[in-house]
């Protein structure tokens, strides 16, 4: 098993408050790792650190080591890192402009491409995010007119268009109805063969449905890590059990 991302002794502080405590975690290539835990347990911060978006966030600092394919992420150029590590936010944020423009945003950043090449990429990514059939006739209408679920799948397509290796998802289904959620989960299962996912979710059922392994975070600590079936049926730590049965969190 190839380790895609290795997190070693990661500590993070927001001003003087420690938000992540000595995290050690390996993400294996082509798996979906779900990260669950109550609010403020450091899940989103972890994703933002991996993507180095925290650099624009005053007050947040971290130390430790994060290796992407064995290379320190801090040694990589931020734009290169972010092209290799995509991030899907909790609330879908379409860029103002058409559906096509949204998906083409990343490829266009890399430089000139023929219109045909762009169109191919847009179609491929919209198909991968299972949105193509719904929008193929209105690619050149505003992305803001899509429903919430469609917008989130558009955001997934937009991220895939950059051709990432690892995709970080921060509660991608938190504002969505069950049908949209199911569509996104289906897309995830299909994409697993080509990408690696870290899925932060508040929804333990979702984690059980799509994840290969699950990590439980509580107050900035990694409490338990296991396969989905093990962690949900026979949690080893009492706190995991308490969280899963609704006694904490």
């Amino acid at each position, binding site marked *: 098993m190839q380790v895609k991302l290795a997190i070693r002794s990661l500590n993070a502080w927001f001003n003087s408050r420690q938000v992540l405590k000595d995290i050690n975690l390996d993400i294996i290539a082509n798996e979906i790792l779900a990260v669950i835990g109550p609010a403020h347990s450091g899940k989103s911060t972890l994703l933002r650190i991996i*993507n180095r*978006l925290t650099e*624009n966030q*005053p007050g947040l600092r971290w130390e430790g080591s994060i290796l992407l394919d064995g290379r320190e992420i801090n040694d990589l150029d*931020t*734009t*290169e890192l*972010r*092209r290799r590590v*995509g*991030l899907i*936010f909790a*609330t879908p*944020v379409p*860029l*103002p*402009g058409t559906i096509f423009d949204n998906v083409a*945003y*990343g490829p266009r*950043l*890399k430089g000139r491409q023929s219109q045909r090449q762009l169109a191919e990429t847009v179609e491929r990514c919209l198909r991968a995010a299972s949105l193509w059939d719904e929008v193929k006739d209105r690619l050149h209408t*505003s992305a*803001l007119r899509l429903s919430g679920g469609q917008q989130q799948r558009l*955001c997934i397509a*937009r*991220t895939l268009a*950059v051709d990432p290796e690892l995709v970080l998802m921060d509660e991608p289904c938190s504002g969505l109805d069950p049908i949209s959620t199911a569509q996104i989960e289906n897309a995830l299962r299909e994409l697993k063969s080509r990408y690696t996912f870290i899925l932060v979710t508040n929804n333990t059922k979702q984690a059980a449905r799509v994840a290969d392994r699950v990590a439980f975070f509580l107050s900035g600590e990694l409490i338990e890590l296991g396969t989905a079936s093990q962690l949900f049926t026979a949690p080893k730590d009492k706190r995991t059990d308490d969280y899963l049965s609704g006694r904490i969190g």
Partner: protein
Amino acid sequence: MSTARTSSRPVMLVRPLVWQTLIWLFLGLATLFTIAILFFIIGYIAAKGLPVITLRFLFSLPERMGKEGGILPTIIASWALTILALLVATPVGVGSAVYLTEYTRESALTRVVRFGADALAGVPSIIFGLFGFILFVVKLRLGWSILSGGLTLALMVLPTIIRTSEEAIRTVPVALREVSLSLGATKWQTVTRVVLPNALPGILTGIILSMGRSIAETACVIFTAGSSLLLPRSILDPARSMAVHFYILAREGISMERAYGTAAVLVISILAINALAYIIMFRFMRHRR
């Protein structure tokens, strides 16, 4: 039945419905008053000025100090000054705003710059005129010229452009910037592809305001561009703007009729600028929504 004495509520001196009506009346009258003044001014100038405006008035040179002939040089001067001022002030102003919002963290320096811009925005234009006269006309030996006048106007409108652009840029959601960055955009790509297009309506508002102020400015221009009635042939020539022409015609009692004619052209220019800007903005927004 509860009376005012037994009720715990405060005694109402006026019944709510009456109070509502009074407020409605007051607010309505205030609005009406504002609009009425605006229409009175425009109407008055139009009534006095429009009959003077003929093709000959617009496209010929003035004769006998402006008592006869047209106002072509002043129209050209006004537009040249305004366009020059904006060509200088827009990149510098928007650039400063981008720097303040995107490339620095909030610090003592940014607060000083912001305070300075606010203070400058409140400085009377005649002070800018004097400054422009000393710096451009005398020290830099540009003389009374469109160049001196345009640069002085640029200084005058710069704070407005910086502050309106800054506010506009600040209203662009952080989430949009993060999306752009997360897709592998550099900071500059994020600024040019996401931040500025989304802030454009606000930035444009500042530019339109500045345009209006530049084209209508008198004090600043009379000090720096002079009041020559000759047709300017380059930006190094002195020139008289419409506003200055209007001022001189009226003050020297040369021709009130022609002063109103000039004023009408000026007002129409400003209205045209505004209309044009709204059309551009509307087109742009429709394209993006």
